Every structure is written in C-alpha cells, then in structure tokens.
C-alpha cells in the first residue's frame, strides 16, 4: 500500500526548474517555440540573463538552496556569442560547478547545460522535455542536507521533554527543561 502511494506520489511530482536563458539566443528560442505553438512541459521558470557568461555559479548554488528541483542553463552555440566569447568562459565555469556539486552529492540530472540558437525553437522544446524527464527521474530535491542523516537531528513530535535516565539513574523531569 505504502509503496503504491509512493509511486503515485512520484508520478504526480512536477519539478520546478529554473532556466537561465541567454537574451540573444535561448530566450529567443523559447519565444520562437511559443510563437510556433510547440508543446512543452510548463515546469520551467525562465530567467533572462544577458549572456551565460553573466551567470555567477553562486547563483546556481543559491537557486538550489531556495528550493528549485533542477537547473537549466542555455546560451548561444560556441562561437556565436553576442559578446564574442562569453559562453566559452561560462562553459569552463559550469564544468567546474558541475564537478563540485556532483562531488558534494547533487545528482547530475539536476544540472543541465546546453546550447540553443534563436532559430532552434523545436530544439528548445525538446531540451525542456528532456530536462523535465531527467529531473523527474531523480525526484524532488530536498536540499543540500542528507535526509537520512537529518532524522537524528529533528526531535520527534509528541516527545518534547527528555525522559532518558541521566547518568545518576534518575529521570530528568520535564519542568526543569
């Protein structure tokens, strides 16, 4: 019973994905996907940035802390950057960020990086579908804390006072706490 409930819960899970889209390519691609009536999941929240080179890696760390289930960063194809080479810098930064977060325990499926030019509305729609599938496959993001460790730190409900015997064998009364 519990299992089937869990499965049902997983199916219902709709991830919240923050998409950082470059103003010159991917944001226009999202626009094109919309104006050409292409269907794609509504899980992404688009944030328009001037260039992927503008995206401070700390913003991604903070976005995940604030409760996003996944991240999508999309910019112009290498060589096509509006600012000549912004996305080359972004690429290096993102590789290191991905290495760091994966090493510290964030699933790689949550961190997505890709290129979409302004003419690729169809590709943008397919990328969003792909990202939503990937994030759904790993389930909701419960923060940077390891859930199975946290159980020891959260006091159980209905047991507010300490009733453990102290080292003298007595029981500490609730009223002294």
């Amino acid at each position, binding site marked *: 019973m519990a299992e089937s409930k869990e499965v049902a819960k997983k199916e219902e899970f709709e991830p919240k994905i923050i998409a950082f889209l470059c103003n010159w390519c991917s944001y226009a691609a999202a626009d094109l996907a919309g104006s050409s009536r292409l269907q794609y999941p509504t899980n992404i929240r688009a944030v328009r940035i001037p260039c992927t080179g503008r995206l401070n890696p700390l913003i991604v*760390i903070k976005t995940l802390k604030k409760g996003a289930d996944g991240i999508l960063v999309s910019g112009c194809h*290498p060589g096509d950057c509006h600012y000549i080479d912004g996305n080359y810098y972004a690429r290096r930064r993102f*590789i*290191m960020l991905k290495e*760091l977060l994966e*090493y510290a325990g964030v699933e790689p499926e949550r961190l997505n990086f890709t290129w979409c030019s302004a003419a690729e509305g169809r590709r943008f729609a397919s*990328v969003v579908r792909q990202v939503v599938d990937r994030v759904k496959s790993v389930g909701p993001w419960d*923060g940077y804390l390891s859930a199975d460790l*946290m159980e020891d730190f959260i006091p159980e409900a209905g047991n507010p006072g300490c009733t453990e015997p102290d080292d003298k064998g007595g029981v500490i009364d609730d009223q002294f706490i």
Partner: protein
Amino acid sequence: MTNSYKEITEDLQDIIEQIYKQEEFDRLLAYGRGLFSGLIEPVIVDKEAELDLDRLEFTDEAYQMLSKYLLKNRELKQVVVAKPCDTRAIAFYISENIIARDNLIVVGINGCPGIKDNTACDECDSKNPVIADYTAGNLMPEDEFAKDKSDLKYLLSEENQVTRKNHYTKEFMRCTQCYACRDACPVCYCDHCFVESNQPVWLEAGSGPEEDMVFHLMRTMHMPGRCVNCGACEMACPEGIEMRSLTSHLYHQAREYFDFRPGLAVDQKSLFSDYNEEDPEPGFLQQEGD
C-alpha cells in the same frame, strides 16, 4: 627525496645573513621559535630592528603560509621565506597584479620535506619553488604524485553520491562559520568577500546545517584556478573539518580537463579568465534527433 629540516634551517640562516648584508629591503618574513610559546611562528622583522639569526628555524611545524602575510604590506619591499606551495601562491599574486615582483625577495625552499599532519603534502606536485631569488637546500627531482591517488582515502571519488552527500553533511555540520579557512587561504584576498556581502546576500545570517553546506560550496566554487593545494584551510579549521577534499577534487579535475594548474608561472592566466575553443563538454545535453 627531500632535504632534512636541519639542512634547510642552516641554509636559511646563511642566506638571510647574506641578504641583510647585500640587499635593500623593508621587512623580513620568516619562520622561527616563538619567544614564549616555543612553537614555530612567523617571525616578522623590520630591517632596522635587530634579528637573532639563531631564532630562525624551519621544521615540520612551519604550517603557516607566509605568502598570506605579504598581502598586508604590499607597498613595502619584503623578504619572504617560502615553501614551494607559497611560491606558487606568490606567482599567482604576481600574475593577478596584486604584488609587484620588484617588491619581493623570495627565499625558496628546495625539496620541501613537508609539514606534519598536513594531508596536502601527500599529494604535493611541486617539491621545488616556482619563483625564487635565493634557494635553501638542494634542488630535488620533481616527482609527480609521490603516492597513488587511490591511496588517498579522503578523496571520495570512488564512493557513490549518497555516501559523499552523507559525508559532507556530517562534516560541514560541525562548521561554526568562523571563516578561518578563508582567512588562512593564501589565495583568498578579496577586500569584499561574498560571505560579508549584503548586496546581494549570498549567505544568510546564522549558521544552520544547510547554510554551512552552502557556505562551503560557495567557498569551494571560488577555488578552482586559484587553489594551490597547500592545505592551509584544513590546518586552520578549529573543528577539523575535511574541506580540502572538495578543492582537491576540483584541482585534479581542472588538471585533467584543461591541463591547468594555478601558480606555475608569473604570466599565467587564471582558469576562469581564459578559455580554449576545444574545451571538453562533459555531461552537457546533446541534441536529440528531432
């Protein structure tokens, strides 16, 4: 293959005596016995003041990074005794135009025998100074990683994601956010650090377990392309948190992907201020056939 501490100490005393006679400078930074504690401490002496040469010493307790002490008085001409990792930090300063090369007289330590209890020395890949005006000890052959990387148990590359997450949650839970790791780090030199920034607020007030994790991730994210793998952060931590495995992992990955190691030359561009059109794209979303 390393020199002994005694050889290096004797060499250092000779060299510094020589520098006092020959060179023009304002301040000397070296290691020596503390007057009261008996521990190895940084000894900072002005040229005019009298220096007891016998006090200067280099032992396996000389864990302070003297390169960090250079930053406070950048305008002075300073003589610094530098371990190989210190010289890499100094080369990084020069490449970032923080300190002028002319303001420095570097006394490098050849064939550094390492520092006690510093795990960074196990994976040291620079046994000789990168830049030096004088050198103490004999030049030693640069042997790449003395140990196999898989012997280094604190590097968790082999473990799975859940184990690593558990490990780091447990480690960083002890963090009290004293920022000693940042203060000890020779390549952390910003006047305005992200932890104290209130516009934007990167780190919220208070030290909860999740904030600790975010602090360490953000600190580590500043490190690739700067971290010279000296181990000062971990040596400084009052809680003994193993945070160096994160920076160390990025250090090795940057070397693998971009063949980049910071602080190897004074005219080197840092990792994030340079790019190569042929950079790899590991884990990027590829185009689906549509």
